């Protein structure tokens, strides 16, 4: 009974050790992947920030106004409002 119990303990210790070695070897190669993924995330975030910055700069009113003049847009003239008064010809 005692011998059987000892064997079970030994088997458990060895199998846990083996699992740890397998996992360690698996995860150690995943470190490279993790590093690459982090780099990719950083690059995408950087590109996103650059695009956001570019959009903000290009759509700023201080930049749009001279561009609008360049393209021939003009300030609006006098605005005429139409009234809802009854026309003379109507009965």
């Amino acid at each position, binding site marked *: 009974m005692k011998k059987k119990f000892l064997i079970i303990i030994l088997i458990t210790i060895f199998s846990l050790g083996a699992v740890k070695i397998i996992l360690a070897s698996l*995860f150690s190669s995943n*470190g490279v992947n993790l590093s690459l993924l982090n780099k990719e995330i950083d690059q995408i975030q950087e590109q996103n920030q650059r695009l*956001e910055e570019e959009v903000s700069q290009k759509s700023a*009113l201080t930049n749009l106004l001279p561009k609008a003049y360049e393209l021939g847009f003009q300030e609006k003239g006098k605005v005429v*409002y139409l009234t809802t008064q009854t026309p003379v010809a109507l009965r």
Partner: protein
Amino acid sequence: MLNYRLRILYLLFICFSLAIILKLFYWQIILGDKLSAQAKSQYSVEQELPASRGKIISSDGFSLVTNGEAYLLYAIIPKIKETPQMISRSIKKIIEDVDEDELKNRLSNQELIWMPLAKKISRQQKEELEKLKIEGLGFEKFSERIYPEASMSANLLGFVGKDESGKNKGYFGLEGFYDRSLIGKPGLLSGEKDATGLPILVGDRKEENEIPGRDLELYLDRRIQFLVETKLKGAIEQFQAKAATAIVMDPKTGGILAMASYPNFNPSTYTIWDPDSYTNQAVSLTFEPGSIFKPIIMAAAIEEKAIKKEDRCDDCNGPKVVGEYTIRTWDEKYHPNTTMTEILEHSDNVGMVYVVNKLGLNKTLDYLDKFGFGKETGIDLEGEANVPVRDKKNWYEIDVDTVSFGQGIAVTPIQMVQAISVIANGGNLVEPHVVSKIYTEDKVVEIKPKIKNKVISPATARIVTEMMISAAENGGKWKRPEGFKIAGKTGTAQIPLEGYYDKTKTIVSFIGFAPAENPRFVMLVTLKEPNVTWGGMTAAPLWFDIAGQLFFYLGISPRF
């Protein structure tokens, strides 16, 4: 003999053992901490994950302040192979605002290994410099604040500088007021790495995520802000004014739609600007308001039934003598038996003295407090100024008389806008506010309008509004947008200088709201020391010019 040899060997063993013990003692006990730290630095990594600062967004969703990247250009002196002259010339070609001689001096300094050469260079400049492949030059990336609209609304936004410990800190305006919300909380990554620097996932690894700064959405409308700033700048040039402010506020919510202040600055390059230009005059300037204060006293007197709209002044036929002082009208014209409405139309100082005397000192002080004078408005901007109203015991008869036409009391532009909003919105004192929403990681916090107290009844507000409409229509010969009911009042306040008023130096202003029947905005414009000293000829035309554009932009139709 053998015994002798054994003894020597024994002694040698003891000596060696002692030497080993001593060396181990030296490594483990004396150098233990140092060596342990060295070893740890080889296999462990601890990295701060910076939190991005929150953005500031206008009501149309445009980022008035966002984050971008910039680089620090540095040199590692021992690695430099080209001459300092050649390197500095190459850098100067790409970064125009650097001092070439200063660069040469820095590159020639052999006492230092690492030397900064240029701060805040752009990505394009960095890429161009990289193409030159100059050995010994390097770049350090950092995040910087980007202000796409440059100096637009600069005094309202503030800027980000450094604190005593070299960390980012917001100063002035929103950046200063909301610094703790905008700044976020950096995260921390700790773990083990292998010889090539790659992370070991089975080792001790701890990752505490960063909490990004909160984004702020404003009531501010970018197009209104642009319009107001453009017009204000034009008026400064036209009238050669030294400073100017403009505030546009929604009287129902207290939301600031636009706020401009001159002189201003560019927050991206704040270090090269005069520090005086950082001040937001709209909340920090204290001035004697002059005649734009008259509707406030009039409203208080009507609310207290001290006067009625139909009353006529029986003491307005000439200057009023109070002790050693004589109170006159601005144009030396007097209007016997004048109505209360005409007092505002003519901006009649003597008429206002009649009104304030009917109201009395106690009630006047009561209403100054109720309208929010003498205390901060609570606007969410750093640097709000306030001059407390004097104690009752320090008020003399002349002080009560002069306060009726806005002299002898100091207010800020934002206090004036807050007070006139009471008349515009039917009697409520609403707290002015710039931020409408705060975006956290998982929710949106909406800032609801805050009504501080009820100051006057809707009936009184209607009566004073009608009086202000008459003042805007008949108070001067300015060009008004046709078909719109506008309630307004001009002001010309002399600037007090060492105990007397300088007649040549004035702060001119116009305050009003429109459309009077259902106001969409309250607006105040002020110009400091213009070359034409009357508000009716300077601030009023500017106000109506901006209002005309606002009607069109806000889709408000005229009523013929």
